[in-house]
């Protein structure tokens, strides 16, 4: 398998001197293409920080993050924006859809940033809605959708740009267990049928069961790394 994500001695700390908080402490991990990886650990263990660093949303205090052979930790702002747009899809715990755009438009927006033609955008939006089981709901605004439906839109948005990796931060935390599992089934299906790499954080055991790899974080360091 091809190495897709690699972190080396990744450190991230916040504050200074007496208020210094070490969120990540020399984390080195490699994730291969097509993996369905869960980062697990208690609150404050550094799961979100690790995802943010892998996704280029934050800069490490030291160490490196390499995606598809490119060190994004050293990238200037504009380039890292382009890299995120073209290579990474994000799913957030609070869905974070644009409230004034419909489901379709939320999915379409990222492709607009990529400069995809209007015709192709329409085709892909339709396809994403079908894959995520949201057919017929495309015209609805986020406020008119349930939490599960909103998170499906977020999955569709993350996939729409055809990224190499989808990073999901506690994607099921705001959902009931049935909806959470259903959403995870969608993600798993995309992983298996399309070979899309998923890295997600969770502390829900039922979700962990479906992951093919579990990276245990504790106090900012990898405690255990197990493949199923």
């Amino acid at each position, binding site marked *: 398998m091809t190495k897709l994500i690699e972190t080396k001695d990744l450190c991230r700390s916040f504050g200074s001197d007496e208020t210094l908080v070490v969120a990540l402490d020399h984390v080195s991990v490699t994730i291969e293409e097509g993996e369905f990886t869960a980062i697990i650990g208690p609150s404050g263990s550094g799961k979100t920080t690790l995802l*943010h660093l892998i*996704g280029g*949303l*934050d800069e490490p205090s030291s160490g490196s993050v390499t995606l598809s052979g490119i060190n994004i930790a050293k990238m200037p*702002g*504009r380039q890292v*924006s*382009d890299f*995120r*747009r*073209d290579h990474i899809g*994000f799913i*957030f715990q609070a869905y*974070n859809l*644009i*409230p*004034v*755009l419909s489901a379709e*438009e939320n999915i*379409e*927006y*990222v492709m*607009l*940033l*990529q400069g995809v033609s*209007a015709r192709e955008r329409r085709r892909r939006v339709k396809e994403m809605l079908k894959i995520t089981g949201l057919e017929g709901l495309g015209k609805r605004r986020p406020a008119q959708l349930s939490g599960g439906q909103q998170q499906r839109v977020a999955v569709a*948005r993350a996939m729409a*740009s055809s990224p190499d990796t989808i990073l999901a931060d506690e994607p099921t935390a705001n959902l009931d267990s049935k909806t959470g599992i259903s959403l995870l089934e969608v993600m798993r299906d995309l992983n298996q049928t399309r070979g899309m790499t998923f890295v997600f954080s969770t502390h829900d055991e039922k979700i962990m069961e479906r992951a093919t790899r579990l990276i245990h974080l504790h106090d900012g360091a990898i405690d255990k790394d197990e493949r199923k």
Partner: protein
Amino acid sequence: MLIFKLAFRNILRQKRRSLLTGLSMTGGYVLFVISISMLEGSWGNAVDIFTLDHTGHIQIHKGNYVKRPKIYETIVDREEVEEALAGEARITGYAPRVYSPTLAYSGDKTSPAFLIGVDPVLETSVSRLLLKVSDGTYFDAAPNEDGYSQAMIGAGLASKLKLGLGDEIVLIAQGADGSIANDIFIISAIIGNKTSFDRFAVYLPLSAAQVFLSLGATVHEYAMLVSNRNHNEAIASDLQVLLPNLTVSPWQKVEESFYRTMQSDRQGNHFSMGIIVFLVFIGVLNTVLMSVLERTREFGVLRSIGCHPLGLVKLIFLETQMLTWLSLAVGGLIALPLVFWFAQYGILLPQPIDVGGVNFQHMKGEFSSLVFFMPMTFIVGAAALISLPPGIRAARILPRDALSSH
């Protein structure tokens, strides 16, 4: 298209706030337009008052006659001038004139006066001289049966010399050839009133004035009106090319001190209006800044899905511009009939203004593209400027911080 939808819907998010902000811009625009209209209108009236009273929109002289008038500095080749004027379609009328200081006598009374020789027919197409006849009849070029030419005199001179219609007036002046000019003229009309600028003027028919001053067929000046007074400077430039040996001056040069006063007053008014608009836009800036603060998390999401910082600046710029243009559209609909009414009917003055014997009862506004587009440009520019600080603020938001905000 999606970006426009996003910007438009963002405006509609806080409807009441957007409405209030829009109304403040609409109100600012309407006030700005009406102020400019009245300002331009009153200056336009002032310009019309003296250009249509006597000055005309353009004048032609020999050499530096405007600043240093000399009796012998005359236009000799009148055919060349009149040919050039007749060939310019934008000129609606022109009239030749001669001038000279003179002494006027009647019985044992004497007064300094100013002689103006005009073509009785052509002059009516350039000035309000005919309308300013307050008593008697407008003169004609032909002398009476006794061989005396007619004269029209200002009301001030008539009062000083105790002259009335049909009386004789004796004028003494220096002729262009150095001789002493003196002659008797019969008063056919009294012009204006005691406050008119020409209250001490003596108007003579051009031919009589030329003989009196030994000017031959030459004249000191051609005054003319053009169809659109705003184009007079361009027309003067065109005429100058055709008449290189003469001096063609727009009224702005002839009445230079008035023009400078008008320009500085305009600038002062524009500055005051600019301050008002600036104050309106402080409110707008506050609204846009609040909108940015409220959407911090959303900007973080946009940044995380690949939107460039400049993209956020553009989005906020677009939102501000949309709100501005909507406000301007509403403002335009309100201002258009108002300005039209001001231009057509104006404000009735409590006391009519007497200008050279002509009464003006209304203060009218101006209805022109400048009145609408100048404030519009100013407001759109101000909106563009004030959208930059919030835009830059949004662009500087770090995705990590934004995503953890509420």
